[in-house]
């Protein structure tokens, strides 16, 4: 019995297709490359995330102050030496690249290597985040104890890169569960997600979003598995654990929960007889796990000063702008073209394209590294072709869609929840700032759905030509990644 149990995980792992492992490897290698290409701290909020880990390492407690720019002495010195603030948001300024500058950094590190480092208790925007990702990052942080801040940062980035591998693995498996019919299409969707440059860029950095993407993909996978094979106590408990891990990783995960709750409700209602009682027990266990995590989050105090606004701030936001309708209108326009009768909150801006599409095509660094304008226009062509192919598959398989309406509604609600969460956060800064949080990285928890859409697009070319279209999609996404890396290299080192 013990032997059988011990073998079970290996049996499960052996069932994972080789292509899935390769997609995971691609995502890891790609994110690793990004981690070396992107200069230290040139990813949104990375100094704050590093400060959080350092605070945990030095004091064993999470940061308590949201003051930005106040870091422990070693990090502050590193930021100064590598010219983070000179380079950030200034596309005309390059990263350091002279021997003199390099020697200055090394001299500073040598001089201060044994000096005591005082925690400041501040981690800027990261202060609001739950501690799980940062706690895991303590491992590479401590492994790099004998090195410099930059050595530690790189080791920490490699852990994030490993999470990109997990993300790709879960996305591949999600596609396999959700679209089991055509095996080669799993590879197309899985590889395209694995090589997505925004995933590589974000997962090549120290940020809890790297882990959020993996946990969100796992959430989609668990639900897809349960929809396909039925809800069992184990699966219910696993979903509970995934929700708990997600909540302890980054608060954005909250956006996925309404959809997951809907999915669980549908799955439980489908059960009949004694299994239903067992499932209720399992859901109870899952809820208990979840409740424990919520209490843990509350105890760390992160909810009280969430990056996405405290409850008070949200209320202020509503009253300030008059009505819920105003908020709804803003959130709609945050993603989609304005409808007749709505006030124009983004004059002159087609948010769908200029914020979200262009952002996914390429917006790196501190949102200061872009492609030439014609690239974004040219990218519309393949995007449109892929969208049409995807729609074609959905149309030809509409009967299957109807039979899976509840599952599709679950994914749609998960997506809507996340989008509304980000849109609401943006609204709290409006009208002083229109388009706060308008960054495509916030959409990456939905990578699993993007992978599925791409798999559907490949299938849209038909059984005969589908694989050839799939090959061209693999190469297109690979080219996108290579040119994104070249653009970042040109911006920082050119």
């Amino acid at each position, binding site marked *: 019995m013990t032997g059988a149990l011990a073998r079970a995980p290996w049996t499960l792992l052996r069932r994972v297709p080789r*292509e899935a492992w*390769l997609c995971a*490897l*691609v995502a890891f*290698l*790609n994110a690793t*490359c990004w981690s*070396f*290409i992107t*200069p*230290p701290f040139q990813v949104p909020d990375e100094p704050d995330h590093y400060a959080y880990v350092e605070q945990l390492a030095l004091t064993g407690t999470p940061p308590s102050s949201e003051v930005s720019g106040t870091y422990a002495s070693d990090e502050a010195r590193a930021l100064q030496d*590598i010219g983070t603030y000179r380079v950030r948001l*200034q*596309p*005309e300024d*390059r*990263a*350091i*690249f*002279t021997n003199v500058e390099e020697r200055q950094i090394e001299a500073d590190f040598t001089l201060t290597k044994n000096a005591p480092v005082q925690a400041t208790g501040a981690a800027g925007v990261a202060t609001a985040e739950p501690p799980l990702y940062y706690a895991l990052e303590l491992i590479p942080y401590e492994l790099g104890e004998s*090195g*410099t801040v930059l*050595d*530690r940062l*790189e080791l920490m980035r490699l852990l994030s890169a490993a999470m990109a591998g997990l993300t790709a693995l879960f996305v591949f498996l999600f596609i396999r569960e959700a679209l089991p019919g055509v095996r*080669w299409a799993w590879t*197309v969707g899985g*590889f395209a997600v694995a*090589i997505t440059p925004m995933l590589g860029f974000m997962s090549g950095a120290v940020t809890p979003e790297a882990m959020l993407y993996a946990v969100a993909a796992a959430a989609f996978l668990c639900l897809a598995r349960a929809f396909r094979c039925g809800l069992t106590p184990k699966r219910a408990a696993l979903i509970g654990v995934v929700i708990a891990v997600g909540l302890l990783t980054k608060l954005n995960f909250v956006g996925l929960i309404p959809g997951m709750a809907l999915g669980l409700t549908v799955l439980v209602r489908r059960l009949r007889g004694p299994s239903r009682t067992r499932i209720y027990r399992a859901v109870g266990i899952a809820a208990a796990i979840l409740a424990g995590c919520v209490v843990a989050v509350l105890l760390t105090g992160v909810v009280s000063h969430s990056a996405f606004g405290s409850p008070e701030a949200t209320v202020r936001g509503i009253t300030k702008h008059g009505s819920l309708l105003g908020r709804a209108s803003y959130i709609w326009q945050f993603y989609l073209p304005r409808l007749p009768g709505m006030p124009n909150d*983004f*004059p*002159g*801006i087609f948010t769908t394209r*200029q*914020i979200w599409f*262009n952002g996914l095509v390429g*917006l790196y660094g*501190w949102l*200061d590294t*872009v492609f030439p*304008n014609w690239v974004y226009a040219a990218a519309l062509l393949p995007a449109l072709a892929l969208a049409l192919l995807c729609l074609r598959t959905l149309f030809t398989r509409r009967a299957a869609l109807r039979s899976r309406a509840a599952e599709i509604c679950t994914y749609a609600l998960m997506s809507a929840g996340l989008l509304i969460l980000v849109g609401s956060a943006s609204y709290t800064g409006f009208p*002083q*700032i229109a*388009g*706060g949080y*308008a960054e495509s990285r916030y959409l990456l928890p939905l990578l699993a759905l993007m992978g599925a859409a791409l798999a559907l697009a490949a299938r849209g070319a038909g059984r*005969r*030509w589908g*694989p*050839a279209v*799939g*090959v061209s999609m*693999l*190469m297109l996404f*690979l080219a996108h990644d*290579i040119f994104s890396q*070249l653009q970042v*290299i*040109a911006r920082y080192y*050119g």
Partner: protein
Amino acid sequence: MNRPQAPGTRATLALSLILLTLAIAVTLSGSPAIVAGSNSVQAAETFESTTGYFAGCQGNEFLPRDASAIRLSLDSALGPRVKVRVLKDKRLITSGERGAGWTAADVTIPLRPLAHAVSGVEVCFQFLAANETVGLTGEPVAGGKQSKRELGLLKVEYLQPGHSSWWSLASEVTGHMAFGHAWNGAWLIPFLAIAMGAVLAIACWLSLRLAR
């Protein structure tokens, strides 16, 4: 029952690889834009933050020949459409426009290049930041806030296509990449090449598997 053999996957892969190689070669044959001139104003501080319609002109500028873009130190999270006109003796000599949606601490606006340099030009720009704040960065002028006629001097740079291709700059760029990271050194480029080479190899292998 035999599955129909998917046609064209090998050819598609070969064609894609050729196109990718060509695209990289053509891109690296291009020249990076270089700063052909500037007004020597330092981006010292944001001397004005504005919302709504704004129009301003800055005189005594020097427009270099072949300037294909102008870079203004305007700071915004979601920048509005910006129009630029360059005037000489009140006569328009070139202009450009950048659509809304830009972000960062400066905005680059393409210009129609001129075959000759022109001194003493006036750079005029305008934008409508309806729900957005735009910061003007440069050097404040003493008493500027009171007069409202001259708030400060905006940092302006003029760009033109460089003369060296990325190919000829490759060794310089790879040299730069060796600095400012963990474990600095010349190993980084071979490492990146091997890692991305492995990714390419996996992509090719997976592509060939799609046909089976």
